């Protein structure tokens, strides 16, 4: 289970705390509040926040920014002994990139029900593919990760082609418990009703609240 028990949870929370700090930094600089750290042998070797605004490149996600820092000093093969801690589940793009680079494991805060690639929308980390799958563990500081996102999404995105006025938005603080009936087991098969097909979207209730706000 993506939200199953995490062995040695406190150890991992320590690194997730660092990822949350990165996300907070991103929020204060108007970037999507997603933060991450890559950890090798108990040491942070790369940190990242979204770089979309600075690069005008929609693919410059936190994971990639951190990878750039890592690869400045290490060969990409180091990733096979490296774990990622990211506040929001990696998107489909990042999930695939991480798999191609051979990441060892991914720990995340909350699901990404818009384009998550590790259980939120698809299960790129574990689907049958040419590269080896990797395990994912979700739910570390989930509430904080969600609140950071909500704080961001009540703001307006003036760069969008058709900016939506969001003056009436209010920040909701209620976070509902996890309900993920169809979530994948790491390295296992696709969690679909019909086997072999990519998963239907998993509607995490908490994310639904944020979504409902978006539609207002």
């Amino acid at each position, binding site marked *: 289970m993506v939200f199953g028990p995490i062995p040695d949870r406190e150890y991992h929370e320590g690194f997730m705390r660092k990822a949350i700090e990165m996300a907070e930094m991103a929020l204060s*600089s108007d970037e999507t509040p997603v933060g991450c750290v890559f950890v090798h042998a108990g040491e942070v070797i790369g940190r990242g926040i979204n770089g979309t605004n600075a690069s005008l490149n929609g693919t410059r996600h936190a994971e990639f920014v951190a990878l750039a820092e890592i690869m400045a000093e290490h060969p*990409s093969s180091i990733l096979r002994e490296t774990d990622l801690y990211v506040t929001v589940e990696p998107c489909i793009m990042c999930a695939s990139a991480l798999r191609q680079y051979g990441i060892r494991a991914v720990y995340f805060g909350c699901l990404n029900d818009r384009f998550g*690639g590790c259980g939120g929308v698809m299960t790129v980390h574990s689907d049958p593919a040419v590269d080896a799958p990797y395990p994912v563990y979700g739910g570390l500081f989930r509430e904080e990760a969600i609140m950071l996102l909500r704080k961001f999404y009540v703001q307006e995105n003036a760069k969008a082609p058709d900016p939506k006025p969001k003056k009436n938005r209010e920040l909701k603080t209620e976070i509902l418990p996890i309900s993920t009936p169809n979530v994948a087991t790491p390295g296992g098969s696709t969690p679909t009703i019909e086997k072999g097909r990519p998963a239907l979207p998993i509607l995490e209730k908490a994310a639904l609240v944020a979504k409902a706000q978006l539609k207002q």
Partner: protein
Amino acid sequence: MGLSQPDTTTAAPPTGGTRKRRMLHLKTKEECRLGNETIQVWTVELPSKHAEGILKVIKEQIEGQDNIDLQHLRRFAKPKYLPQHVIGKRDLVKEMYAVPRGWESTPPTVIQASSASWEWSSGSARKRGADRSLTLYLLVCPSNVIQLRGLHDLMLQYPPFCSSADSWAYPLEIKEVTVPRLAPTSPEQADQWSDEYWPTFYRKTNPFGAHPTSIGKAEADLEDPISDNVSVSAMMELAEQAGTATEKLGYGISTGCVIVERADDQTEIIAVAGDARGKSLPSEGGSDDANIDTSFEDAGDKKTGGAFAKKTARKKRKKKEQQIAKLAEVNACTSGNVMCHAVMRAIGMVGRKRLRVASQPISTRAAKAESGFYAAGLQRDEKARDAFFLDLPVTPLEQQYFTRDNLKPDGYLCLKLEIFLTHEPCMMCSMALVHSRVGRVIFKHRMPQTGGLTAERVRNDSGPVGLGYGLCWRKELNWQFMCWEYTAFKYASGSARQYTDGKTSAAGHVARRTGATAGVQGKAMDRNGKAYYGGENDDEDDDAKDDADDHPKHTTTTATATSSAAPGDENANSRMHSLAHVHV
């Protein structure tokens, strides 16, 4: 819709060979599973006057009852419009309960005299028209949303299913029925489904993909471009040249990407990029290569001239080849720097160009975001970053298009741009295209084992054709774009199933073995061999090979052959991986 063009069984060969390939619009995920996909739902019969009340209960109490879009089905259906198997046997007891009773509307203040004739109703209700159904069938929700027991208990709490002071409980009977999962695509289909399953609506749209008229317009734009505009064949050739260029330098495999902006019906080539996954990172001893400008200048040895320059260029190239070989050893999957797939590089170049042509407010904001990075204490080694993302040109060809300030200022990411690719992109690149809000994507070769755009998994005549992700058009994601395979004329024209010519097939097979399967890394190192992809493929052999590429069966068979190669072949095939296994 892909093969829906008129089946020109007699006119399959292109006239005079002028047009070997055509655009074939990809089926979307939902179009692929259209067939007759069904879903189980709960349904319950109830007196019409309680219909709204019970629906309200369902909407409020059953979580996820509308998670699956069943808007194409009537929520309430009159029994007379339902197929017989849904209604089942006539139930006289139920009918009796369905009749409105006089005392329900008028509270019984008088005990009926034993002598008086019994009345079922006040009478007025009946006169409201014979057509008015006494009961309706309500589509409750998909049956996987709530257990039968739970639904049963819930219904029993509310009228008409609970007994109350002024009403007897209406007999609760919950049935599970089968209904179409997706909306119909024609009125005929809607009628048929209404007869077979449940009353079904047809709405005049294509809910599963782009509207046919937009697809037609795009195909006209690209296959018969107006003067000065680019054509799909020319752009595909450019993409191939881009791939060949980086491959020749030993930077990567021969895959390429071209990005075009079409504004006011005029086209501009915005970015051209080849794959450069093998270009060494600073951490891999490639820091001297970080100076991008020099590395491609001495590669274009004809211009630089001079035997010495050539010699050093060759030396340098040899060194790079060794680095790639080393890289291949280090990375078991030989994936190299994944970030340097052609699509990622080209998207990065567009961002770079946007920064360059941005108006004051936009560039100020970007600069502010950039300074936020410093403030955040993130390491700022720009050279290393550029070497990792490689979103700057590395060949003269890329440079030529990168330097032009031809992008409309202040656009959003790659919104509505056109993307031309030699190969179907991997999942990462496919999703990068979604994130970048691209408009149209055209690729030449399918990648059945790694591609992320194709929704089809299997084709009857050729076996596996893709992983089935169909990222170009997924409702779950927040962006969809039109996508075409630029395929041999015979497939696009709908006569693909006639492809049984053994000779051609065998030729294709052989060409495929000697060419494409020779492997990516291997090709990058093989200086003597010719470029198997790209360039002008005008001779017959290449034709056969191209056809083989379109026929994924060969890809699959040869891929298996390669991976199970005898030890004796190992020398020739060491570190050589079939392109079929490569993320492009």
